[in-house]
């Protein structure tokens, strides 16, 4: 019996150690260093993209012999859990990417600060758009290297506007919207709402402003917000953060609360936004891409949506983001590669990272459909993007949108990051699936629930 209990204690402590992440260093050849590149906390999981990433690695191998890189592809759906588990069991990779602001925030405190490496290697940060470097600061990380940025714009279907006899939304920031009767309105969310109502059509061809409109048989929706993430939805109105600044107290920004009420009423009262069940149905091509189904007139989305937007037909174009209370915000996603602080080979990892964001960047960016953070590369990128579509798209809108990036970023770190995300996700899903809720009570309840999570030490 005594032996058994001894063994038990020994195993339990070994397990505890393992769970805390004391890992044995990987033994390897002294001459070569093996790096693990962890993929798909953001984009990069599509078969074609994986191929390009492999090709980039092969080129890197051909150029030098000292560093070998292994790509680990985990699909986006399980990428965060898997990385967290790997790190926790002391089995973390050396670098990860492309990873956006949210993905980086989810692993707050796990990233290596690149500032010393940037300085010691003399890496030149000047070719990048001013301010874009702000997007890469996460917590203790002073500096990340800019790689890809994705501004948000309003995607719209020009043919639906034409059918309804309406003018298309403005392409230039600051321009007004002109109605058929010549009246001009500020290009803001009130105007968008009015437009969206007229562009929501039932199967008899009646729009949502007409008598006899049948909300049970809608075949075309006026607007699709950034549905995936409530914070993104909020930031499309105005940037903000749930954190009041002390890292302890939760406050829902007023603009976000307005954005969420707009979302909720749009679904259940005004009917120009599809409810959850409709969003899930095959006809509307669920899972965040309902604009691609070709049954939605307007949609706020990141530039990366160009990957599947061809499904919407060849009449879509880009317009300026609407304003909220006189200010315009274009939530901007920023992807880069990051080195894990647990990496045994930070210098080598940085060498590879510098290669990814440098010589290999063109190839990778075009595989990801990402807009280069390096201003000099942007023209070539848009020229290539334009070549993918048979019709003319006003790409200038995307370029102009960068000036309206959200700061603080909506996906920035907050305490209990993953728990907070779960709570937001649950409310989002509840709002999508349940009509008749009192939104003020919902917002209060949500704030309290997040606060309770933050209060837990």
């Amino acid at each position, binding site marked *: 019996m005594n032996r058994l209990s001894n063994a038990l204690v020994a195993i*339990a402590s070994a*397990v505890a150690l393992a769970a805390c992440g004391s890992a044995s260093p990987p033994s390897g050849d002294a001459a070569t260093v093996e790096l693990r590149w962890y993929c798909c906390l953001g984009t990069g999981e599509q078969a074609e993209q994986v191929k390009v990433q492999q090709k980039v690695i092969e080129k890197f191998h051909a150029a030098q012999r000292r560093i070998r890189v292994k790509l680990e592809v985990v*699909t986006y759906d399980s990428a965060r859990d898997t990385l967290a588990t790997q790190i926790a069991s002391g089995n973390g990779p050396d670098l990860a990417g492309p990873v956006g602001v949210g993905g980086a925030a989810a692993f707050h405190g796990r990233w290596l600060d690149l500032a010393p490496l940037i300085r010691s290697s003399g890496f030149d940060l000047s070719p990048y758009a001013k301010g874009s470097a702000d997007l890469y600061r996460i917590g203790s990380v002073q500096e990340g290297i800019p790689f890809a940025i994705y501004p948000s714009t309003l995607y719209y279907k020009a043919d639906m506007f034409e*059918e*309804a006899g309406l003018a298309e939304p403005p392409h230039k920031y600051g321009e007004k919207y002109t109605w058929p009767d010549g009246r001009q309105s500020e290009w803001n969310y009130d105007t968008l709402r009015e437009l969206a109502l007229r562009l929501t059509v039932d199967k008899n*061809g009646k729009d949502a402003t007409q008598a006899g409109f049948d909300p049970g048989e809608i*075949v075309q929706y006026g607007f699709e917000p950034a549905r995936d993430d409530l914070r993104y939805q909020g930031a499309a109105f105005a940037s903000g953060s749930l954190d009041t600044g002390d890292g302890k107290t939760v406050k829902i920004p007023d603009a976000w609360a307005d954005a969420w009420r707009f979302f909720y009423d749009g679904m259940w009262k005004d009917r120009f936004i599809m409810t959850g069940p409709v969003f899930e149905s*095959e006809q509307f091509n669920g899972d965040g891409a309902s604009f691609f189904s070709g049954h939605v007139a307007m949609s706020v989305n990141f530039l990366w949506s160009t990957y599947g937007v061809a*499904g919407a037909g060849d009449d879509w174009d880009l317009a300026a983001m609407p304003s909220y209370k006189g200010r315009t915000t274009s939530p901007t996603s920023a992807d880069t590669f990051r080195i894990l602080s647990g990496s045994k080979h930070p210098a080598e990892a940085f060498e590879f990272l510098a290669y990814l964001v440098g010589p290999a960047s063109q190839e990778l960016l075009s595989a990801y459909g990402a807009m280069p953070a390096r201003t000099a590369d942007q023209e070539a990128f848009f020229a290539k993007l334009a070549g993918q579509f048979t019709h003319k798209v006003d790409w200038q809108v995307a370029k102009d949108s960068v000036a309206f990036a959200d700061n603080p970023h909506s996906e920035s770190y907050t305490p209990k990051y993953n728990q907070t995300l779960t709570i937001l996700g649950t409310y989002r899903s509840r709002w999508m699936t349940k009509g008749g809720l009192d939104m003020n009570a919902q917002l209060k309840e949500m704030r309290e629930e997040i606060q309770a999570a933050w209060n837990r030490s």
Partner: protein
Amino acid sequence: MTPTPARRIRTALMTIVMFGIVVAFLSPLVQMMLSSLKSERQVSQAHAPLLPSDPRTFTHEGRRYDVYRVPVDGAVRELALVKKGRAESEFVDPAAPEKGTVTWQGSWRTLEPSWTLAPHWSNYAAVWKLIDFPRLLLNTIALAVISTIGTVLSCTLVAYGFARFRFPGRGPLFTLLIATIFLPTAVTLIPTYAIFAQIGWVGTWLPLLVPAFFGNAYSVFLLRQYFLTIPREMDEAASIDGAGPLRTLRSVIVPQAWPAIAAVTLFNFVYTWNDYFTPLIYLSGRPELQPLQVGLAAFNGLYSTKPAYIQAGAMMTITVPVILFICFQRTFVRGIMSTGVEK
């Protein structure tokens, strides 16, 4: 004895109702097959036909237009919609485009599109490549075969021990074995994962295969119950002939218990084939090692906007278990019967 009319009616009713239930029960498989052959265009169309079809289109002056069934002067004509409007729309007759456009009063949305039957078999080819089906299939077969061998070997030995030998603590140990059936797996998950991570097994097949060689409660139970029905006299005769316990197992018990062993083999094969959670957590960073179920779930995440692809993928993963089942359904049924009756 000729059946009475009442009896005939009852028979007819019962048979019709039961086959109705069977049809309803299997209808998801039919919907899967039909959906797997649909085009994306059909999937995103309201009130589309049940069968895989394509909307008819007509190319006019370099652009493609949808063809609708338009009621004109009491007859239904198939016309291509070239200019959409809320109150009136313009159409072109595909048979005579040179005649110019026809204006039709009313909302085009009330019109029915014209469909032509078109199963997209190419979906399967596309999924086969995208999901890297041969690799997933090989992984699944290898995992299922190895762990089934492990389970059958170990469970036969353990069941033999419990069935044929008296040793101190046999009763409590057997109870303990049965009790593990009731244990939630979560209560052992984290330490097990941590140990496997510590010894470098995470990201390999070992955590999936090694435990199979240490027996599992269901199979041991099933085999033991069957072994108990084999008359002891046969063992004794063998041992008089000088056979040791292992030889007795091989030459007497195994040949007699063949139906039970076959059932255990099949069940474990199907179980491993269908297992999702264990490979998910141990192989999540290694797509090249993953089995079908994990690959299919990941595929679902990647291509959720293409329901036809998802259904084609589902179809491909169920083929092997269903074929196995059709070939060996008697063994399956007998295996389940023996667990159920004895308890």
